[in-house]
């Protein structure tokens, strides 16, 4: 087959598990060009939030997406707190990081397990999911939910850790260290996994910078844009960590960044637990949100998450805008995909850790 033809991938393609439509122009088995169509699950959230008050919006932002469900309210609340001029208690700052890093570890493990699924390594996928299940148990035992933690509130956090919970958390985190080390070894050294991921979906560093790619997608190309390190928020400036960079620029590099960040997340949680100060977890009472504008950015599992909130003195925001990492990352697909094989389309798409429900709020 030598002529050029179009292959539809999505919006209900079984490999993508996300409602997005790729019109892939294919020559033989090679991808020549890709056209991305989206907007299938638009929910009008940015209009919805204007009809609800600041407290209700905490709930609705959490429902933007399940995998980074902690980061949306977290960032939104940071923006609102900036408007209201609230300083949260130090213990709450640590607790926010703990919730965020546990979510990050679970999200990254989910993504790499999907990679294993897409290269046809179902045993590795189930093993990774099994490891992630420990983190799901942690979330359910401490926050009461497997996905939506509901950890943050305006002025602090909604939960507290007692001694027993801390002991449980440390025990469970130690439990998954060994399996993750083994999994990392398989992801980086198994010959067929390497053959399927190495040199696939190349995103050169200059393209990553030009397209403003964020998160592990950029760090896999050696671009340091970890908001936790560049513009530290809550207590990240007091914690000791190094930004993880890989220079492979391919799917493998991005997967390795994610796997190493799982270790980093575990380490950060442990650091937070060691340095956890005493005190209240929230400021007393609910603040009145004055007129003003606030901006906050955090490092979500998929990259930089940005929130803009404008209030006019009432209990409802006047305008809210959030920019999610996938929106920046999927432009890079047009650089990554051409030249690869049809079998790589879903592998490459998965490597930017797409979250369509975030992007089409």
């Amino acid at each position: 087959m030598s002529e050029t033809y179009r292959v539809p991938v999505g919006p209900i393609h079984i490999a993508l598990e996300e409602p997005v439509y790729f019109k892939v122009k294919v020559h033989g088995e090679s991808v020549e060009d890709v056209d991305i169509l989206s907007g299938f699950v638009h929910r009008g959230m940015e209009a919805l939030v204007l009809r609800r008050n600041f407290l209700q919006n905490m709930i609705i932002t959490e429902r933007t997406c399940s995998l980074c469900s902690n980061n949306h309210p977290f960032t939104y609340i940071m923006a609102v707190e900036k408007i209201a001029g609230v300083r949260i208690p130090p213990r709450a700052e640590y607790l926010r990081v703990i919730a965020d890093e546990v979510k990050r570890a679970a999200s990254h493990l989910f993504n790499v397990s999907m990679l294993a699924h897409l290269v046809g390594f179902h045993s590795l996928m189930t093993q990774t999911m099994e490891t992630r299940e420990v983190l799901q148990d942690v979330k359910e035992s401490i926050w009461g939910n497997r996905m939506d933690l509901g950890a943050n509130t305006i002025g602090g956090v909604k939960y507290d850790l007692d001694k027993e919970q801390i002991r449980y958390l440390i025990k469970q985190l130690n439990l998954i260290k060994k399996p993750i080390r083994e999994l990392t070894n398989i992801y980086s050294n198994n010959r067929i996994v390497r053959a399927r991921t190495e040199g696939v979906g190349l995103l050169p560093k200059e393209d990553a910078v030009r397209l403003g790619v964020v998160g592990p997608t950029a760090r896999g190309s050696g671009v340091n844009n970890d908001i936790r390190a560049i513009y530290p928020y809550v207590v990240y400036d007091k914690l000791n960590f190094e930004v993880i960079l890989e220079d492979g620029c391919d799917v493998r590099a991005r997967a390795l960044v994610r796997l190493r960040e799982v270790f980093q997340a575990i380490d950060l949680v442990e650091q937070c637990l060691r340095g956890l100060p005493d005190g209240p977890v929230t400021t007393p009472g609910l603040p009145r949100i004055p007129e003003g504008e606030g901006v906050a950015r955090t490092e979500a599992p998929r990259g930089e998450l940005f929130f803009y909130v404008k209030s006019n003195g009432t209990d409802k925001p006047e305008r809210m805008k959030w920019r999610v990492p996938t929106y920046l990352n999927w432009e890079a697909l047009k650089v990554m995909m051409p030249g690869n094989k049809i079998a790589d389309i879903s592998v490459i798409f998965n490597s930017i850790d797409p979250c369509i429900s975030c992007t089409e709020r």
Partner: protein
Amino acid sequence: MITLSASILAYLFFPGGMFAIIFGLLLLGMERIAVARFQGRIGPPIFQNLFDVIKLRTKEFLVPEDATNRLMFIIAPFFGFGGMMTAIFILPVSGVYDGAGASSDLVVLIYLMALPAVSHIFGGSSSGSTYAAIAVSREAILMFAYEITFVIVLFTVALQAGAGDGALFSLKGIVDYQVRNGSFVHDLKMIPAFVAFVIFMLATLEVPPFHIAENDGDVMKGYYMEYSGMPLAVFELTHALKLLVLITVLQIFFMPGLAGGSIVVNLLWYMMKSAAIVIGIALVHASMPSFRVDQAFKFLMIVPVFLALLSLGLVLFL
């Protein structure tokens, strides 16, 4: 007259026909359960594939409007099914059944083994689906690569069974030779051919690392994409029979040893060996990711072909 009706019985009921279909479907179910257990899942019930076939029988069969060749689309599944039914009919089961008895049935086997892939290619290319077209081109590429291995292994076995007296192209003769002189799997010269044949088996069965032509990740169901109802069930039956045929051929070529004098004992021994081979396949299935089609082609053209040629050389010159 008696031999003719015995042949009809053998074709329709035992060891071909009903027995082969049900045993093949059970082996498929077993493979699924074994893979599930290796992956830490529970897996479907062992009769799941049988249930699937029974359910599909009640479903409507749809021919896509833009099918390029409607007739071919409808009859394509039956090529492979017929081929596999015939293959299981001519294959001997050591100590149980002597096969159809033709003296050169090994050559017939080469043609019959290719039929399921041919029916995939016909069915997929006449369905008018883009995914099926991609799957068909992959299947054709892979078929080209793995059939080479099969033919070389086959000649190696035939030469070895001929014992310096030219090649022996009778399946029954190969079985008898091994029953007299020990199975080829114990013969160091034949070990590379054995490994090559196992790789060939995995590639024809489209088990990882060769789960390519119908890889869910990019072409969804591949050539099955537009099929529904009875023809889809026929494809499933063909797959079950193909598994059984391959396992039987493996046993004929390399391990046709007998367990005793009685037919029942030998039949049970055959079924146990088949189950063990299926578990082995499941182990490979569970422990490997899939190649891409270009990588698989390269692998299949080098490793199994080299192993098969090595055995052939050893058999010829030692």
